[in-house]
């Protein structure tokens, strides 16, 4: 059993599982609420890249480990300087729960408490922005998503 930190975050969204899946995997949609394009064909074994809108800077990426649309997506997050080195793994679970979708991210094998704090803050923003976009048409502002 890994003794590295892990993080779980849940939200509920008024949308269909298909809409939530598209919002996580379509770079045109992730660009709107995540200020990054998630670029991949999201087939198992394919690479994926997390590319910052505007600058085109690659802020991360890794490999698609599991893809079961519109229910489950697991990706590795790799070291940019050493792509063969997986640093952590995250899974999205999408479940219909009455009239809403329960969206869970489980992020495991985090390096340390500092990375845990960073990803905890990051996922809360990303899911809040995704929920706002799908429910109201307006994501959180880029200034909130990319402070500083």
């Amino acid at each position, binding site marked *: 059993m890994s003794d590295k930190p892990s993080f779980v975050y849940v939200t*509920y969204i008024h949308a269909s599982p298909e809409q939530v899946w598209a919002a996580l995997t379509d770079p045109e949609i992730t660009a709107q609420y995540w200020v990054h394009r998630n670029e991949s064909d999201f087939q198992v074994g394919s690479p994926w890249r997390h590319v910052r809108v505007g600058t085109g800077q690659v802020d991360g990426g890794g490999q698609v480990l599991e893809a079961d649309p519109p229910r489950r997506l697991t990706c590795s997050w790799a070291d940019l300087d050493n792509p063969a080195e997986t640093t952590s793994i995250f899974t999205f679970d999408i479940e219909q729960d009455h009239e809403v979708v329960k969206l869970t991210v489980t992020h495991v094998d985090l390096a340390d408490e500092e990375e845990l704090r960073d990803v905890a803050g990051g996922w*809360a923003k990303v899911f*809040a922005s995704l929920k706002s976009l799908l429910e109201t048409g307006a994501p959180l*502002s880029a200034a*909130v998503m990319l402070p500083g």
Partner: protein
Amino acid sequence: MSDNSSLEYVTHIQATPEQVWRALTDPGMTAQYWGTTLDTDWRAGSPMAWEQLGVRIEDPAQVVLESDPHRRLSYTWHTFTPEFATSVGLDQELAARLAAERRTKVSFDLEPQGNTVKLTLLHDDFDQAGVLHGMCSEAWPQILAGLKTLVEKS
């Protein structure tokens, strides 16, 4: 990380701190996303009566701990009365366990960030070996997702 004495949940809401504060304290709003109303004048030290599913819960230990409008709110959790247990369909064993656990407290911090509010919930003082922590871990994401939906819709 196996510390079950507290739980934290953060979300970001496109609203003003005043709107989020109102959503936390106005019975007409809490009823909509939580099915709960909190009857109090929201002054530190004031008693609070909870009402869920038509059951009113009163106890002198249910009090407002801190009230700094639009910034920070804290209060003690409600007592698990037999009437409450019946109304939400808890079996007798679970009801007895909940009633025996120590009283918990919640706090909400509201921080403006651009045109949004960062809302941080801290629910604290759980019995480490108790069942309430797990129940609240399931419930808070649902409750606060409902709050966000309601506030952003209005």
